[in-house]
């Protein structure tokens, strides 16, 4: 990029534009953070290097922007890499960010060694399961491959561990299902979604979030994944715990049947990533354990939590049906600030519609008439408990007594409410989930079990005409289905 001297002058790093070479010894990590406004081009010159379990090619440029990654050298020969920086033209006006990258080499990879050991333990379990399932194909007592639940406080590196375990699993010819229960991140989907995705190929490190994308109508630059997507609609898991639990159990049922359908997946098991749950969320944790038939809980960076869980699950632990393992937190974990998280979410939404630099997509702009459709929105129960908003997350919002009476009624009310008063406030700049339920459907309770086709984005609400300007991922007719307005927003 040519720059006029003295005008829009970036910092020295970028201007010099000289390649910088880094040598990483065995078992060391080169940790680096790139702001969105810069783009770092990285090339491995020699040796073996990986980012969160995904091995990097030799002498091929990878381009990263808005990431906090680390390159790990697993083998004795270490590795050598080279990088250059440039301005990321698309994001050059992003404020609130440092104007340079931060990077350093760390020898503190204790947690990495633990994750490697954990992987080989899991792989041994998978091997045992595979062999036994082979012999006992017709027996009911099949041995499941490990189903691992990752727990830990905020910024303890749960997602990173999940990525490493899945990547390593894939590298050893497995296809584990990565379940993401943290609605803050959109894993192969939108923020606000809960997903289950078989990892049948490498992660795409260059994509937003470092996961990759779901399928498209064409051939993609990187093989896509096929996630099962449940639209929760909030980025905070505690916004409506009933709805959250409901979706988790649906996801659990589908995941279990996938395991039954596909022996390769069954022999690979499940890795479940979560939001920061504490011992106060024990009911939720119990639900997850039973929905996904979890047999291993891995607690990262919180000794107390692992001890508390040992006590709570004492029966399961003593009859060996549950194994609780603790891991150290990596010193490399970065605390993310709100604006960075927000920016990542926006980029994830953009990526759903428009793809990313390697693989652009063509979404479709159209207009719909509000009266042709039926709109719902998820109920934010934390609104009713606004005083509890800042209480520790998961602090049982719904008192048990009232919940029972509510359950008897079994209505939609505590999960979704119909939108009748349309306003820019509850539609504009929001992401809507398109369900598979026709708008003509007469029994609203079906909505709870409806799967979703995908998402659309409302760019404008024209009150006078009663119309919405929407961005549709797929060109063609807008499906006449019930729409759910999520609480996930994004301004173009």
């Amino acid at each position, binding site marked *: 990029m040519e720059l006029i001297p003295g005008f829009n002058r970036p910092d020295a790093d970028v201007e010099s534009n000289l390649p910088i070479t880094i040598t990483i010894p065995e078992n060391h990590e080169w940790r680096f953070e790139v702001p969105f406004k810069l783009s770092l081009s990285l090339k491995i010159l020699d040796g*073996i290097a990986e980012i969160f379990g*995904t091995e990097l*090619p*030799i002498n*091929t440029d990878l381009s990263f922007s808005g990431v906090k990654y680390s390159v790990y050298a*697993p*083998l004795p020969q270490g590795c050598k890499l080279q990088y250059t920086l440039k301005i990321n033209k698309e994001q050059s006006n992003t404020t609130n960010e440092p104007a340079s990258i931060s990077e350093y080499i760390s020898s503190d990879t204790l947690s990495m060694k*633990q994750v*490697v*050991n*954990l992987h*080989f*333990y899991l*792989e*041994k379990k998978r*091997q045992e399961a595979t062999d036994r399932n*082979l*012999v006992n*194909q*017709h*027996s009911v007592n099949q041995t499941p491959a490990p189903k691992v639940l990752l727990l830990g406080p905020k910024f303890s590196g749960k997602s990173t561990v999940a990525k490493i375990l899945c990547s*390593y699993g894939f*590298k*050893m*010819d497995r*296809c584990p299902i990565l379940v993401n229960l943290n609605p803050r991140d959109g894993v192969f989907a939108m923020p606000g979604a809960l997903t289950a995705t*078989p990892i*049948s*190929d*490498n992660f795409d490190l260059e994509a937003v979030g470092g996961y990759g*994308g*779901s*399928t498209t*109508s*064409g*051939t*993609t*630059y990187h093989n896509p*994944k*096929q996630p*099962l*997507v449940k639209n929760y609609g909030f980025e905070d898991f505690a916004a409506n715990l009933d709805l959250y639990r409901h979706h988790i159990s*649906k996801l659990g049922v589908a995941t279990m*049947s*996938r395991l039954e*359908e*596909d022996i390769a*997946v069954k022999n690979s098991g499940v890795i479940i990533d979560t939001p920061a749950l504490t011992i106060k969320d024990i009911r939720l944790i119990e639900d997850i354990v039973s929905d996904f038939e979890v047999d291993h809980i891995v607690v990262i960076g919180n000794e107390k939590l692992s001890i508390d869980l040992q006590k709570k699950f004492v029966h399961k632990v003593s009859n060996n049906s549950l*194994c609780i*393992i603790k891991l150290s937190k990596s010193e490399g974990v970065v605390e993310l600030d709100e604006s960075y998280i927000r920016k990542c979410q926006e980029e994830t939404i953009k990526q*759903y519609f428009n*793809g990313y630099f390697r693989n652009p*997509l*063509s979404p479709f702009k159209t207009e719909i008439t509000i009266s042709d459709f039926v709109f719902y929105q998820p109920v934010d129960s934390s609104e009713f408990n606004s005083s509890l908003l800042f209480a520790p997350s998961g602090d049982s919002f719904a008192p048990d007594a009232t919940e029972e009476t509510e359950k008897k009624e079994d209505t939609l009310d505590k999960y979704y409410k119909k939108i009748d008063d349309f306003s820019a406030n509850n539609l504009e700049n929001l992401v809507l989930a398109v369900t*598979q339920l026709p708008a003509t459907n007469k029994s609203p309770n079906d909505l709870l079990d409806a*799967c979703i086709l*995908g998402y659309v984005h409302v760019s404008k609400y024209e009150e006078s005409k009663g119309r919405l300007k929407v961005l549709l*991922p*797929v060109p063609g007719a807008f*499906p006449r289905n019930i729409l759910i307005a999520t609480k996930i927003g994004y301004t173009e």
Partner: protein
Amino acid sequence: MSEIVQEYAQSLKELTFNSRPIIDTLTTIAAENTDEGDGILDVITARIYKCLPEQKLFALYLLDSICKNVGNPYNILIGDDIFKLFSHVYLLVDDNVRKKLQNLFETWRLTKAKGTNIPLFPPGELEKIGAFLKKAGPVNNGNELSNSRLIRDIDELLPIFHNKLNNNSNDTKLNERFNALNQLKFLLQNQKMQPNELKAVEAQLNTIKHQELNRSSTSANSSPNSTPTLRSNIPSSLPATPKVNTVPASSANDLFDRLINEGIITFEQDFNSPRVYEINYPKGNPNDHSDVFSSILGYQMIRSEYEQLKYNELNKLKVTSQSVQGFISSPNVSIQCKNLLYESKGLKCSICGKRFNTDDVGKNRKRLHLDWHFRISQKFKSSSNVQSRSWYLDDVDWAKFKDENLLEFQVNIANSTQSSSQFKPQESKEIPYVIIPSTETNMNNKCLICREQVKGSFNEELGEWCWYNCILQPGEPKGSRKIVHANCYNETRKRGALEDAHSGLKRERI
């Protein structure tokens, strides 16, 4: 004779030695001039019939190369003559070349015509060659083992068992072994085996053979079903019997020990006869023999080198659910173990870093992978690459979805699932249909590809109106009326794959 064919005949004369470049060039010319297929085949057959015996093999190799790499129309046009050509060459060459011819023939049995799932040559012709080779007897039998030789061995044993069974139909053990042999034959016909696995199978067969011949050589010889070919073959395969002892003890015994340890096979031994291996069928499930047998055996046999290495390394790790916490904090796993993630899978893609095994399967996968990279980058360079996000699947479709469909090995996968599905309980071939959405009032529809009209008909079992032989156009949500004939869809997909394959070919020439 057209100019091209004349030139072809001219170049063909240069094929006086086994020249890869000449064969490749002539194959490429054949691929580019399929219109002249008849003429080209005529000059090749003429060459095979007329050239010096020692040069016949090379012309046959050329024919083989064209049929395998180009396929249609060549393999179809020559199909009915292939036995004549093969036997003609076979009768005029020495033992060395005969062995090569046998190998060539074995590849024909295992190869499918390019881009399809049908055999390279008509099965009837291949059978004729098989029978012919059987009559001709094994060539100077080298130590090479092959699927087809073992199949022949089994074919010898089957009539003996069959006879015995006729005399003694209540002998369940006999029955089981007869079934097992049949299964093994099936397996050998459908799967490529590693040499050591072949040896293991051979050892097993020899044991059975040895025993049968010892116990009842009289009955075998006197039985009306023992055909002359059987008798003529027994002497020739007898020298193989002592080889049971020379089979490298490790490979065969390892396999059997593993099978025994896992309870799949048991053996009984009395003083007079060698070990007799028995397949242990799960009790109370007598109808499932075939399935259990073939998938167990099938799996054990296709464990690749990498999988064996992985198995051994993981076995060395002493860790259980109870000791896992200590294991995790312990020093690192050995470098050999760690390398299961890296150098044990020796082929690394330079574009994306993905790793592949160094065996043939791995090499093939890497080749498909690189072709895929190439195709993708071509597509992204051309401006025609417009795509958009697909809709998500619903729970049921997702649970049934196979991730192979997302990967670059699709062509391969399609073939391998084809063969492996034969080991699974056969799903009855159902007619595809699309349920007409309840909101739909117009029952008449048309296929978006061939534009032919499709009428709705009522399915009583489902209680729904359906469009038969159709599928929803991929990417369409449930409830859409955009349908295509399943056949039309498969055809267009095949064509797409073919075009893709061609683009791969072009790249190689550049």
